[in-house]
């Protein structure tokens, strides 16, 4: 059985067929989020809809802090952040929002003695999925990351790349409308990266995927759209082609996208 057939067979809840009342899955305006005392996200304006969005930026640009704010873990200290049209800062109860989010943290922690299936099922329970959907959703998520043959092995027996894939499996198990992946390709070998890109291709039709990375080529291969942030602010948002076009032969990099990345960053950092 393939994942697609599963998709057709699964029950569709009322909230999924209800018409959306918002224009963007993610909408940030003048967003400020602190990491400790530092304003790691500092006046960010950004909107994202369905599709795969590469979140690019140098180390310390505020990518992880932004993703943590999207995951409703880090509380914004200023500005506005809307998820599914709901203001996260004012929301009384984030449960509804959180049920529709999938999150793979940069440091993905897991219970070593759980099997892959048990861990993904545990997360499905924590994400308050309808009980009857859980076993099927767990199996489908594990298959989609290519861990079906290791599903009943304990997490502690997995290699680094497999752990990462198990992490992706738990993130997608609830068919999230917003999927947040912080450095998802770290530790994956080339074949696994290809498989991961295929997964992104499948998801981009109905999911708002935010992939944070500092590897420009990941973005070029799999993303419909790129957001480049630096020092907590948006530097550039556009298609991969736009990114590539921004560079010139004199910029640093081995590909058009890398040269575009360097040019945009250098431009942003240039004192006015």
């Amino acid at each position, binding site marked *: 059985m393939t994942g697609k057939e599963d998709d057709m067979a699964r029950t569709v809840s009322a909230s999924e067929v209800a018409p959306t009342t918002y224009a963007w899955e993610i909408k940030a305006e003048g967003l400020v989020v602190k990491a400790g005392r530092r304003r790691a996200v500092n006046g960010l304006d950004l909107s994202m809809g369905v599709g795969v969005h590469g979140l690019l930026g140098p180390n310390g640009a505020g990518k992880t802090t932004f993703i943590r704010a999207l995951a*409703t873990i880090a509380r914004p200290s200023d500005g506005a952040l809307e998820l599914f049209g709901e203001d996260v800062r004012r929301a009384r109860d984030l449960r509804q929002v959180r049920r529709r989010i999938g999150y793979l943290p940069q440091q993905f*922690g897991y219970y070593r003695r759980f099997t892959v299936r048990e861990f993904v099922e545990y997360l499905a329970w924590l994400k308050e999925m309808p009980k009857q959907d859980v076993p099927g959703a767990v199996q489908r998520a594990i298959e989609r990351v290519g861990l079906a043959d290791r599903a009943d092995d304990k997490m502690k027996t997995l290699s680094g790349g497999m752990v990462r894939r198990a992490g992706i499996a738990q993130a997608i198990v609830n068919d999230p409308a917003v999927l947040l992946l912080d450095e998802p390709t770290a530790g994956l070998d080339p074949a696994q990266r290809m498989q991961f890109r295929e997964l992104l291709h499948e998801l981009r039709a109905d999911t708002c995927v935010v992939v944070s990375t500092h590897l420009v080529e990941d973005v070029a291969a799999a993303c419909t759209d790129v957001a480049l942030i630096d020092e907590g602010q948006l530097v550039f948002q556009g298609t991969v082609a736009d990114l590539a076009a921004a560079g010139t032969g004199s910029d640093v990099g081995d590909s058009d996208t890398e040269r575009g990345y360097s040019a945009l960053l250098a431009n942003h950092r240039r004192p006015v």
Partner: protein
Amino acid sequence: MKRILGIELRRSSALVIGLLFVVASLAMLYLMSGPWQNGSAEWTTEWTASAMWQRYLLLFSWPFVLGAGAVQGLRDHRSGVGELMASVPKPRWHRIAVLCGAVGIGLGSGALVTFLVGAVQVSFHGAYFSFGWLPILLVGLLALVASFWAGMAVASLAPYLLTPPLMTAFGFAAVILLLSTPGSGTVADGAVPYRVGLLSPAMNGPSDAFTTVAASVDVGQAVWFAGLGATAFALLAARSVRGRLVALLPVLVGVAVALPILPTDKATAYPVDADAAAPVCAEGLPKVCVTTVEQSLLSTVAGPGRAALALLAKLPDAPTSVQQTTVHQPQGGGVRYDPSTVPFDSNDYLWKPVSGLTPLTPEELKTSFLAGAGTRTCLGSREEWDQRYVRERAARTVAAAWLAGQYHPLPGRSAQYANADVDRLGLSAWNALRALPEPEQLRRVMALRSAALRCDGDLLDVLASGGAR
């Protein structure tokens, strides 16, 4: 939810800890030599005693339960799942509740299985049955589970590798301190008031088959451990500093409510179970009675008891019945009792063989009833090493010999090293007594009996001088 509970049961320390508890407890009960297997009320012979001994053994296992809880409490920190768990919709306490439930089931089953091992043997023993063991067992389960949760809570607040061993060390320090109530005879005797000592999960072992635990102890302990469990759970579920401060309330309230409920002395805390101690008498007269729990003694005791009463009848104001007493000789000695009965305490050194492996012969039993002309010893258990013990026992032997018309050493296994001394003194006093005229002999034995009833003076001197007129 049921599936998640199943996962936690398999993957947390729940089942391992339950199994370890059974193995460790049974190892102590079977392999260590202790009062639970050679005392007057063993863990395999009486229901209440079985439950009490298992509570007693928490002295050793409880600190490890705290430490094991701390190991489990480190799981989230060691796995670094905090970030992921912070992003899920389900409230944190649901997750904590399932984990706490799983470890509660694991540890609780361990304690139950241990109790069942004792219970099966007790039921084959045909012991006296009452539900006295039930609250003792239930409060023990509550104490274990609440303490395990407390270990988890402390470790989640202080997630360091050293937390589990420190919790165990703290546990030992706590039980030892709580043991040090006034009159306990421990190094720090009197360091804590008696009722504070009752906050310990470990309890006294029973000194006999009719000792039970007062309802006030069960209730007080249940309140305090329920408070501890509630605080531990709330600490685990709390996400803010304020939440954690509020979480401390249940345990404070628990202690505040429990302390006034708990009794202030041992006699109130561990009373005689009136039903278990109710007399069961042999048919006919004169009366020979034993306690309900030790009914099986009756057939052994009845014949020799009546033979002894018949011999005692030659004394004026002779006792008219033989009764098992539930009042043990205190360490200092000197217990008052009805002079119309010949009391026997199945805990006395004299009686230990009755419930032991080598039963006394009827003749030996009769001799022991005649000892001291039907009186109890005035010496406490601490005085067996004393010269007073030798002199009292010699005098008591002579009184029995005079009634029986023949000198027999008193039966009993303890303090055998002193038997030669006892007999040397006893035989010379016996010969001196026999040399006296018959009425004077009777007068001397009567003087001895009345001195023994009053626990006044050296019985051998009384026998030699006739005592004060």
